[in-house]
């Protein structure tokens, strides 16, 4: 058991070093600015669960490029559309990932990009509707770095 835990520790240190060289030194202490970013985006309003769908792999082997799709249910008409979607990663050195801006001309509120994830963490999407309401969804992604297995 001692041996095993030693090996785990060694692997954890190894993984940590790799992460530090790729993304930054401060990832071990997860508290980043994500709460502030969400507060700023919503103006302090509470976002309701639902209508937002986040599509991410459950396990990402390479945290450097993780495909991410965000979709928001909306008719996307002049009367009712999604104005913007904020995407946050709560375990990165900095919480912001991207903000997508939509309009009725978008036709559908859907966007896909590839993102960097420093470690296993939650991805949070907050959608702002044109009527000032907010919806949110989150998804955890397990990140494997350096081939340490699941």
């Amino acid at each position: 058991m001692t041996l095993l835990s030693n090996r785990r520790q060694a692997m954890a240190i190894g993984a940590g070093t790799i992460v530090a060289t790729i993304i930054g030194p401060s990832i071990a202490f997860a508290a980043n600015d994500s709460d502030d970013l969400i507060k700023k985006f919503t103006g302090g309003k509470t976002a309701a669960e639902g209508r937002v769908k986040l599509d991410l792999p459950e396990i990402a082997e390479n945290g450097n490029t993780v495909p991410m799709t965000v979709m928001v249910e909306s008719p996307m008409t002049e009367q009712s559309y999604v104005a913007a979607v904020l995407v946050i990663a709560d375990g990165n050195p900095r919480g912001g990932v991207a903000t997508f801006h939509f309009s009725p001309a978008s036709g559908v509120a859907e966007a896909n990009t590839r993102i960097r994830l420093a470690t296993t963490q939650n991805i949070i999407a907050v959608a702002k509707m044109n009527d000032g309401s907010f919806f949110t969804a989150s998804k955890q992604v397990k990140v494997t770095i350096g081939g340490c297995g699941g």
Partner: protein
Amino acid sequence: MAEAVKPRIKLDKKQAKKGDLVEVKALVSHIMESGQRRDSAGNTIPRKILSKFTCTVNGKEVFSADFEPAVSANPYIQFKFRAQESGPVILTWVDDDGSKIVGQDSITVT
């Protein structure tokens, strides 16, 4: 890095009926330096990313995005727009240093 970069842009259709959804996929070469990494001497490598992306169709903005350093190198973006009128589809990425990468395609609406 930002100079003379030709983005790869693909529209899922070149001709669309009015009201159809057109999917745009775009990939551009860029280092997207996060500003978090250090070089071998321990100095922070300064941040250099494409921070703003916009797409206009016939001069009207249909989609835009703000990117943070958490967007991967060689950023890929996929989105849709509703075909309303024929015209050029212009994609613009703005670098932190103010330089721009512009790519163009076109759509014919019947």
